[in-house]
C-alpha cells in the first residue's frame, strides 16, 4: 500500500471532524462525568471556590449518606418493582392490541389509533387530578398497583406504536399456513407471531422500562409516602429548607443513573436501531 499524502482540504476536514468530535462528545458527556467526579468529593472539595476538578481526597461517604439519610434501597426496590410491572403489563396489553390493529380487520381501528395518538399529545396534568382522586377512592394511593396502572397507560401508546410496526413486518403467509393446519387465532398469535417479534419486544421493553423508571409527576402525586416512594421522587427530598447536601444528591443521582447507562450502553445497537425504525415510521 502506498501512503498517499493528504491534501490540505482533507487535513482541514479531519481537523474539523476532530474538533466536532471533542465538542460533541464533550458537551454531551461532561455533565454526567462532572456528577460522577463530584460524587467522590469531600464537602471541602465540593464547596471550594473556585471548584477543584478532581477530588483532593477520594471518599465514599456520599454513597453511604445516600442510604443512611433516606431508605434509598427501598426507593430503588419500589422503582424497580413498578418499572418491571409497567413493562410486563405494557408489553402484554400492547402486543394484544398491536396484533389486533395490524392483523385483523376490526372496526374502530382508526378510533383506537386516534385515542393512542391523543394520549401522546395529552399533557399529563390534564388527567392527574382525576386519577389521583380515583385511586384515592379505590385505596390505591401509595401502592404498587396504582402507580403502575397510571404509568402503564401513558407508556402504552409508545409501546403499541413500536410493536405494530414489528407485527406488520411479518409475512402473512406464515400465519395463513398455520391457520390452514388448524391452529386457533390465539395459538397463531402465541406460537408463531410472538416468537418472531421477540427481538422487537425486547427493545421496546427496555424503552418502556426506562420511561417508567424516569417518571416523576405521577410518582410524586400518587406515591408520596416513604413506603412506596420511587427514586426520582426520593432524590429531590434530601434537601431541606436549611441544607442542600450536594454530595449526597450527586451520589444518589449516580446510583439512579448508572444502571440505566450500563443497560443502554450494552443494548446500544438494539436501542438505536429500534429508535431509528420507530422514527422512520411516520
Amino acid at each position, binding site marked *: 500500500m502506498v501512503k498517499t499524502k493528504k491534501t490540505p482540504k482533507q487535513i482541514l476536514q479531519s481537523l474539523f*471532524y476532530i474538533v466536532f*468530535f471533542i465538542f*460533541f462528545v464533550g458537551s*454531551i*458527556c461532561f*455533565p*454526567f462525568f*462532572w456528577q460522577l467526579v463530584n460524587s467522590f468529593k469531600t464537602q471541602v472539595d465540593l*464547596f*471550594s*471556590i*473556585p*471548584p477543584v476538578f478532581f477530588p483532593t481526597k477520594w471518599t465514599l461517604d456520599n454513597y453511604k449518606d445516600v442510604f443512611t439519610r433516606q431508605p434509598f434501597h427501598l426507593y430503588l426496590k419500589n422503582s424497580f418493582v413498578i418499572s418491571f410491572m409497567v413493562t410486563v403489563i405494557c408489553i402484554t*396489553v*400492547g402486543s394484544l392490541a398491536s396484533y*389486533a*390493529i395490524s*392483523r*385483523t*380487520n*376490526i372496526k374502530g*381501528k382508526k378510533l383506537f*389509533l386516534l*385515542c*393512542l395518538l391523543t*394520549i*401522546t*399529545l*395529552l*399533557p*399529563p*396534568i*390534564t*388527567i*392527574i*387530578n*382525576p386519577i389521583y382522586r380515583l385511586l384515592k377512592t379505590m385505596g390505591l394511593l401509595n401502592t404498587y398497583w396504582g402507580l403502575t396502572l*397510571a404509568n402503564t397507560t401513558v407508556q*402504552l401508546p409508545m409501546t403499541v406504536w413500536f410493536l*405494530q410496526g414489528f407485527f406488520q413486518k411479518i409475512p402473512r403467509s406464515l400465519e395463513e399456513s398455520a391457520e390452514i393446519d388448524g391452529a*386457533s*387465532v390465539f395459538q397463531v*398469535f402465541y406460537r408463531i407471531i410472538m416468537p418472531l417479534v421477540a427481538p422487537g419486544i425486547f427493545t421496546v421493553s427496555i424503552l418502556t422500562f426506562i420511561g417508567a423508571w*424516569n417518571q*416523576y*409527576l405521577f410518582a410524586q402525586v400518587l406515591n408520596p409516602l416513604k413506603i412506596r416512594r420511587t427514586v*426520582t421522587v426520593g*432524590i*429531590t427530598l434530601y434537601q431541606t429548607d436549611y441544607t442542600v447536601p450536594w454530595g449526597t*444528591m*450527586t451520589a444518589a*443521582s449516580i446510583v*439512579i443513573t448508572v444502571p440505566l*447507562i450500563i443497560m*443502554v450502553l450494552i443494548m*446500544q445497537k438494539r436501542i*438505536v436501531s429500534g*429508535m431509528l425504525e420507530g422514527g*422512520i415510521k*411516520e
Partner: protein
Amino acid sequence: MASSSMRWNMKKIKEKEKMGYIFLIPAAVLISVFVIYPVINTIYLSFFNLRIQTLTEGAKFIGIDNFKKILSDQQFKTSLGFTLKFTIIAVFLETIIGMIFALIMDRAIRFQGFIRAAVLVPWAIPTIVSGLMWQFMYSPQYGIINAIFIKLQFIKDAIPWLTDAYWATTATIIADVWKTTPYMSLLILAGLQTIPKQLNDAASIDGANKVQSFFFITLPLLKPVLTVAILFRVLATFRIYDLVAVLTNGGPANQTASLSLYTINTYFNFGNIGYGAALATMTFLISLLISFLFLNTLRSKLEGAE
C-alpha cells in the same frame, strides 16, 4: 369442496375478527379509566368552584367564571409566556443542532458506535436527575460553568443563573436542549438514512454544491420526518414539569413556573381543584390547538399505522 373451504375461510375470518376485539379490550379498559374518564372529569370540574379546604360543602357550579378568572390572572400570563418562549426557543435550537449532529453522523466516520452511545447518555438520564446536575453546575459560587467562563475571561462576575428571570429561562433552555437534542438527532438521522445517496451524488454531478443539495434535496425529503419529530417535541416541551420543578422550582418569583407547574401547585398546594381543572383544561386546549397546526402530519401518521 370449494364451497366448504370458503365456508371454513369465512368462519376463520369471523373468528379472527372476534379475537381482534377481545385483544383490544385490556387496552381499551385502561385508556377509558385512566385517560378518557379523567379528561372528561377535568373539563367537567373546570366549571365548578371546588376546594380541598371546603370539600364538605361540595362543588358549586359557577359556569365559566374560572375561565374568566384565567384571562385576568397575571400568573397565568407569566406561565403561558414562559412556557411558549421556552418551547419555541428550545425546540428551535434542538432541531438546528440535532440536524447538524445528524448530518455529521450520517457520513461514514470513525467512532460512529461511540458517538451513538454518547448520544444515548442524556436521553437515558431521568429529567429529574439532569435538573439536579445542572442546578449544581449553575451555582454562582461553586458551579463549574461560572468557574469556566471566568477562567476563559468570557465574564467578570458570576452569572446569577437561577436567581434572575432572564438567566433562569436561559438556564432551563440549555438544560433541556442538552437532554433532548441527542434524541432529536437520532430521529433526524433515521430520516436521513431513508434518502438515497444517489440523489445527492447526481446533484453534485450537475454542479450543485453541498449547501444547495442540502436545501433543495435533503431538506424537502426530510420534511415528513422532521415535522413529526418537531410536533412531538413541541408538545412534550410544552408540558414541561420535571425540569423546572427541580431546577428553578418556578423561581425567581414564579417567573419560570411553567403551565404544568402552576397547575400542579394550584391543585395540590393551594387545594383549588376547580381552578386547577380550568388551568389543566386550558393547557389541554392549547396543546390541541398546536396539534391542529400539524393536522396533515398527524393524518399521515395515522394512515401510516394502518
